């Protein structure tokens, strides 16, 4: 029954698409020169052989711990990240890009290790990541590319590979694209108490299909679907779960001195994830645009989430200073294996990770882009996240981009 209904849906989809594309082909062929910039990428992006861009960004992230979230642990975290990105068009049909980033991480969960004798004491974490990509235009309407990823931390390394393919349709009123990414991650399993349990693997596979569509001379949109499969060691190695037992003395390793013992977090070895996302933007006037974006998500761990994000873009000074104001609402259900409290017996799968709990958040963001010259742009962005579990976050970023 399910297969038949799916086959019917596929048939209807194909018939509708073919009919629509045929209708588009009947439109008169444009007699004016081709637009040099894809609308989806907006103006100001360098195109053509010998052109490119170089960008720097310094990002700052901080979340404090107000005592909510996981009451047993201090979940404070600070990240400072400088990053560089470089794009270069070798020819009109071939370009490459590279992104290098470094994270300096200070977190209570890492510092906590120094309280256990089995770990000499890590006081911080350092992440280095490199992404390389190339894009080739096969024809006027077809293009594709490859991307590689490598990153490493003191207890985590990742190797990623991906391919993408895109085609313009209907007189370039639409673009259908596919991206296939796979990651092979290696985790040094260092537990909450510093105990080392060798290494383990995490494999991820994600297929994303997206549809860009011009809706009118002042509206365009993007819609996408991601299917992802993860397998292997999916826990956070240093996460623990507290099994509470009133008969025990206060545990000095716990933030709230609760009576109980800690055991390692355990989660299923596989996870299937589905995300449907989209956005549409409208050019209201010469100086203002508005956007509404959203995302629906579900996975096999029992987490369902909804996000929606309206945005406003406005030129404060024509062609020189633009502001972006955004608000994001996000809500999620808790994972099946999450519990606030575990009493006496620990189930096989268990987690007290606040990020896998039910919560909602409100994000308020502001960004300014100052075009100091036709080839130079300075960006300044800030977001404040109000989470219902008290783990509020602040993000700041300053960047400079030079196009040549």
């Amino acid at each position: 029954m399910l297969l038949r209904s799916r086959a019917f849906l596929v048939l209807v989809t194909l018939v509708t698409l073919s009919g629509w594309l045929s209708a588009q082909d009947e439109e008169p062929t444009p007699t004016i020169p081709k637009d040099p910039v894809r609308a989806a990428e907006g103006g100001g992006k360098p195109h053509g052989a010998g052109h490119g861009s170089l960008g720097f960004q310094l990002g700052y992230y901080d979340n404090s711990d107000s005592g909510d979230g996981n009451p047993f642990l201090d979940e404070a975290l600070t990240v400072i990240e400088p990053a560089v990105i470089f794009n270069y068009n070798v020819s009109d049909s071939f370009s490459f890009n590279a992104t290098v980033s470094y994270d300096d991480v200070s977190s209570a969960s890492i510092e906590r290790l120094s309280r256990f004798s089995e770990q000499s004491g890590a006081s911080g974490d350092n992440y280095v990541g490199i992404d390389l990509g190339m894009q080739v235009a096969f024809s006027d309407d077809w293009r594709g590319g490859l991307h590689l990823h490598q990153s490493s931390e003191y207890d985590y390394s990742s190797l990623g590979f991906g391919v993408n393919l895109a085609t313009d349709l209907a007189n370039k009123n639409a673009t259908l694209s596919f991206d296939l990414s796979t990651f092979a991650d290696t985790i040094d399993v260092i537990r909450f108490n510093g105990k080392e349990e060798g290494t383990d693997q995490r494999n991820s596979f994600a297929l994303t299909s997206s549809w860009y569509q011009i809706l009118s001379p002042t509206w365009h949109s993007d819609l996408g679907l991601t299917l992802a499969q993860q397998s292997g060691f999916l826990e956070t190695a240093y996460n623990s779960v507290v099994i509470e037992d009133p008969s025990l003395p206060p545990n000095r390793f716990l933030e709230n001195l609760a009576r109980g013992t800690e055991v390692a977090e355990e989660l299923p070895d596989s996870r299937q994830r589905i995300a449907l996302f989209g956005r549409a933007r409208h050019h209201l006037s010469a100086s203002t645009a508005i956007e509404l974006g959203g995302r629906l998500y579900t996975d096999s761990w029992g987490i369902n989430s909804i996000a929606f994000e309206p945005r406003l873009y406005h030129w404060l000074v024509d062609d020189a200073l633009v502001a972006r104001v955004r608000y994001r609402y996000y809500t999620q259900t808790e994972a099946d294996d999450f519990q606030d409290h575990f009493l006496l017996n620990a189930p096989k799968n268990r987690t007290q990770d606040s990020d896998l709990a039910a919560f909602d958040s409100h994000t308020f963001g502001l960004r300014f882009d100052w075009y100091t010259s036709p080839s130079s742009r300075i960006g300044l962005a800030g977001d404040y996240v109000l989470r219902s579990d008290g783990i509020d976050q602040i993000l700041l970023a300053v960047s400079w981009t030079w196009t040549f």
Partner: protein
Amino acid sequence: MNQPARTVRRGRIVWGAWLAVVLLLPACQTVEFYERRDLNEPIMALSDDPLETHFYQKCFYSREGSAGGIGASAGGGCGCY
């Protein structure tokens, strides 16, 4: 509800949403190149600054159980924090 039944229900929801969108596509008009001036304005660029996206993916969206913001892959490759 058991896991297979839940998976089937989710599959139906996704297919239904995708079908609804595809059925709406014929309603879109064709916009000629010379009519796209407004869409090419910097304030109409649908793609965010890649440096900003990179940072937010790792530090912000990874703190959500559904990891990945709007338009982001829900894949792996990040130990995150």
